[in-house]
């Protein structure tokens, strides 16, 4: 089939579209109010959910940290696990890591929002889309890398030092090593998961981008 033949067949598509597909104003109005189902919209919705949960927990953690610091006798919700001082530290570190997570999520959200409103040519849009996807993935990895070590280390601390004092023995050494190990593991695990989810999709988009670059293609 030559392009001329393609053109004559395309004229049939033109007729078809006019005959079958045209919607009235009301139908168009209804459709623009529906939500998007793209990959980016999915990531954005997940970030919104994380943001909502994260903010709620962060506010509670900050409140609990202040409460246990200012009135340790009256406010001691984790007395079955920690001392008053440890409870303040636990909520304090939880607040800091949640704030870090929220910061990275917020940045990813802003990048996606800016991309959704842009109307650049196909090549520029692809470049930006890939960049934003990679950044959103990176921020997602960072936010989880911050959270996991905090939880694991405090759980370990609650378990291992329930009946022992903190000292420079094997338990103490593990307490120092655990956040590093969990952090490293969490980073690579998240990286792998993100690659599994979006890796091939991104590779495909990169291939399209390359096919729009005269120098790279040649």
């Amino acid at each position, binding site marked *: *089939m030559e392009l001329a033949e393609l053109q004559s067949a395309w004229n049939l598509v033109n007729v078809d579209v006019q005959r079958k597909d045209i919607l009235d*104003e009301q139908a168009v109005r209804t*459709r623009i109010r529906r939500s998007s189902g*793209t*990959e980016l919209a999915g990531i954005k919705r997940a970030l919104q959910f994380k943001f909502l949960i994260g903010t709620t927990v962060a506010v509670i953690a900050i409140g609990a940290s202040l409460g246990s610091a200012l009135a340790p006798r009256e406010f001691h919700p984790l007395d079955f696990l920690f001392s008053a001082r440890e409870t303040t530290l636990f909520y304090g570190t939880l607040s800091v890591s949640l704030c870090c997570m929220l910061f990275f999520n917020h940045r990813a959200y802003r990048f996606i929002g800016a991309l959704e409103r842009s109307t650049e040519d196909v090549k520029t849009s692809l470049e930006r889309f890939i960049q934003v996807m990679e950044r959103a993935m990176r921020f997602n990895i960072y936010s989880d890398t911050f959270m996991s070590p905090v939880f694991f280390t405090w759980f370990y601390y609650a378990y291992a030092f329930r009946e022992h004092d903190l000292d420079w023995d094997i338990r103490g050494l593990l307490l120092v090593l655990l956040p590093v190990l969990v952090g490293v593991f969490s980073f690579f695990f998240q990286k792998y998961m993100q690659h599994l989810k979006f890796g091939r999709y991104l590779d495909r988009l990169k291939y399209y981008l390359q096919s729009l670059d005269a120098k790279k293609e040649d």
Partner: protein
Amino acid sequence: MSDKKAKEQEFVKKITASQAIIHKVCRMYCDDEEHRKDLFQEILVQLWKSYPSFRGEAQFSTWLYRVALNVAIQDFRKEKKRRLLFFESYDFREVVDERRNELEDERLKKMYRAISQLDKVERAVVLLHLEGKGHAEIAEIMGITQNYVRVKMTRIRKKISKKIKSK
């Protein structure tokens, strides 16, 4: 009428008048009715989101092509659903229409078969060409040079005729 409602009214009027462009983009990229509807919906939502950035510097139709093609190229859900990840060749199924004769049906089938050999970027270039856009406008929409549009068109021509001959 509030400013937002007036803006929406203006947008709906413009899109209703130019919607054929979106439908044609959907026909170029989708192999069945359900996928077409999904992509049409997605393009509409994206157009509405990005409408505030349309300041009339380019023609409305140029802007429309840009957004619609960007959504179509970056669209991924249908491919994922079908577990046909990253295979470009779809078996296009054109809706049966009694008003069309056999010859026309055959021509359409041949056209969709030819299109299915092209990747998403090549489909965008072909669509713009079939829509009567000149090299300058295709270059503007795609973000490449006019010279590279010519190169792309030559490659597409060769690809289509080579595939057809091999069958």
